[in-house]
């Protein structure tokens, strides 16, 4: 992907000047897992290694992918986690569909409303997502509440809000444009996958090639050093949550298009999958170490494990159990290897 070769994960950190064998093993264990998974999948399902299947998989990764990218910003910045992303995703989808049905309230009962054009609706929803992220960031930095508690509260609140605005029900039907966002193809490539890839590239660019990105890394690794170097850590922490909320809204809009409904129950526990993707990729919870490229690999590993389990005919609930084991194993393996290399 965009990058992801070293722990620092960036051209500014440069090549791993001291790379013992164990170092390399730790840093690249996730690639190994990926190769193993692809091999298993390919031997189980003959159609697995086709371009078409790959593109389909890419689409299925994308929705989780967006919030994992946002989660990476938050974790890199030392903000621990953003637990509210899945709720923001669901809320955004509901608002997206709801605003398209505004007509319901002003007389058009069974048609889509054209009172508020779709591009404006999208901008509104994106602004709402970013706004919720902003509130998260402000509570955390200005009121000094821990990120975990703040976003936990926000997770419950926003999920409730999604149910409240939808009246608890599902809002059926969105317009063609929105459906295109979730289902459309650009040539052979699903639009949403393309959008995800663009997001990753843009995100990596911002993280690695702009002062903003390097300051965000600095804030995550050592806020005190950053502060004395003329960086206001609060600015970057808030920005990370805004980005996270914004990308959750992007995912919500696209998922609504894909499902053709606004549904407050979608994406339950996805915030945990996003965290798992970041952790399996190897981005450090301590902040300042890791990269988007690693997260992309993490997202793929999670997606592929599910894919492989389905190919094996494993039912959904044992799948969850296995995912849990994989997550713990990934963390334990990294921990053990990094400790043994002293």
């Amino acid at each position, binding site marked *: 992907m965009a990058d992801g070769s070293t722990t620092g994960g960036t051209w*500014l950190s440069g090549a791993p*000047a001291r790379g013992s064998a164990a170092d390399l093993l730790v840093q690249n264990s996730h690639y190994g897992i990926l190769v193993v998974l692809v091999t298993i999948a390919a031997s189980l399902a003959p159609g697995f290694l086709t371009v078409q299947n790959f593109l389909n998989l890419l689409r299925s990764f994308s929705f989780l992918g967006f919030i994992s990218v946002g989660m990476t910003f938050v974790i890199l910045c030392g903000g621990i986690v953003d637990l509210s992303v899945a709720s923001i995703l669901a809320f955004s989808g509901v608002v997206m569909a709801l605003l398209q049905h505004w007509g319901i309230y002003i007389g058009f009962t069974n048609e889509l409303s054209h009172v508020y054009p779709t591009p404006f609706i999208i901008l509104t929803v994106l602004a709402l997502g970013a706004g919720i992220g902003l509130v998260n960031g402000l509570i955390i930095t200005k009121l000094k509440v821990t990120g975990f508690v703040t976003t936990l509260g926000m997770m419950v609140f926003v999920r409730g809000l999604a149910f409240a605005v939808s009246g608890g029900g599902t809002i059926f039907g969105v317009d063609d444009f929105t459906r295109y966002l979730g289902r459309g193809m650009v040539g052979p490539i699903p639009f949403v996958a393309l959008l995800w890839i663009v997001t990753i590239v843009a995100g990596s660019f911002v993280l690695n090639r*702009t*002062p903003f990105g*390097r300051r965000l890394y600095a804030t995550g*690794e050592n806020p005190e*050093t*950053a502060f004395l*170097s003329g*960086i206001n850590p609060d600015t970057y922490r808030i920005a990370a949550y805004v980005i996270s909320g914004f990308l959750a809204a992007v995912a919500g809009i696209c998922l609504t298009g894909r499902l053709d409904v606004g549904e407050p129950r979608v994406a339950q526990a996805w915030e945990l999958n996003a965290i798992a993707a970041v952790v399996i990729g190897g981005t450090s919870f301590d902040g300042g170490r890791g990269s988007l490229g690693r997260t992309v690999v993490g997202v793929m590993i999670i997606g592929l494990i599910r894919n492989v389990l389905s190919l094996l005919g494993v039912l959904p609930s044992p799948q969850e159990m296995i995912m849990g084991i994989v997550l713990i194993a990934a963390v334990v393996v990294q921990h053990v290897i990094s400790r043994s290399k002293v």
Partner: protein
Amino acid sequence: MNDNPNALLLEVQSLTKAYPGVVALDNVDLDVRYGEVHCLAGENGAGKSTLIEIVGGTIAPDSGEIRFEGTRVSFESPRSAQDKGIAVLHQELPALPDLTVAENIYLSRLPRTRLGVVDYRSLHREADYWLEFINSGIDSRAVFGDLPVAKQQLVSIAKALSLDAKVIIFDEPSAVLTLIELERLFEIIKNLRKDGKGIVYISHRLDEIFEIGDRVTVLRNGAVVATNPTSDIDKNDLIRHMVGREVHETRLRQRFSPAQDGTPVLEVKNVTRRGVLENVSFSVSAGEIVGIFGLVGAGRTEVARAIVGADAVDEGVVTVAGTELRKHNPKRTLRYGACLIPEDRKLQGLLLDKSVRENVALPSLRDLTVGRVLLDRRAITVRARDFTEKLKIATPGIEQRSKFLSGGNQQKVVLAKWLSRNMELFIFDEPTRGVDVGAKEEIRRLIVDLAESGKAVILISSEIPEILMLSDRVLVMHSGRITGNVPVTEASQEALLAYSMGSN
């Protein structure tokens, strides 16, 4: 108890402890008699803390022995020292603030009833006995964390007594006490002495030593300089012992003559941060090096942090290059050309996991861009290479992660961060601490060069020779106040030390 007034309760013989690059204790002898208050004095880093940590069982000596009541002992842990009867009362008292006083005293040995639950009645009876024994006036049912610091200290004394401690070591107890509280403490110490306990009392305040001490041992550079009865010596003797012979190091600095008309680069006016800084005022001119000396906790670092806006102050104004700054932060101060090279390079100066290149560029990212958005990779590389060469940073390359560099080279990377920007005022906080001799010399040279090129410099240091070698003027701090402001020509080691202990 022993009736012989000269019998030795605790004997320390030729204790030695070395750390890489520094001998913390060098053949130290010390003895404590029954019913004696034995004071320890010495500058920062003289070895007092190391000595009591060994006696208290926290660290093990490299060689030497400890005799307790005539028999040789060795401690593997603070617990085993405690069991023998040696209690160390640290400045920061380890305690569980949410438990009661009695629970804190008897934590590891709570009395139990036959059912195995805590027997609170006898717990409080025991605790109250010891609290009353020292006339503390503390209720054993009070919550520990609710007590003022002075009373918490009394609780630790009660705890020490309940453990049947024979030697009680006080590590700068007065640092956190008011005068009245201190008098009470002295009363208690005098009573303990009457009971035949051996007291070791460490303090930076010379007056206390003469008030409470029977004998005083002075440490310098890890070695004992002298042990005398306090009745045989006076304050000046003590200071002379602490400072030692004049170290002959040549001044690196040409005499500074301030420009007649120039406004100062930095003006600090009445800066007060409650409980930390009190009414601090001074100024620094272009081309001048102002040294700030003081003992640990005197408020030197706090002044530096207040200047750059790293900590908020309650009152006062900082003026940098003619601009008054209030409620500023380092980001803003930086724009006016003032920077702080912090004391702890690992925790405050560097991103240890990032490359030399990234660290050097960190404060100047905005200037190293194309169109303010895209980082200019080439400019960053050139700058990092330049300064790696200029400062002779020993590294395999600018891509090396800074955690793999030696202390001196790490410090140079921190310096490069600021030298590569155009700053007017440099505040160095202990720039040569933990740095090898060669790098020390280079860093000092660099500081002088900065001043000679017209920059204003503040040099905070615990090393008097370094201050005398580099500064034009010396400020001395004590308890958050500036107690001395002398031209270097009139400064001597004795005078600076006297100011730093709050006596003139």
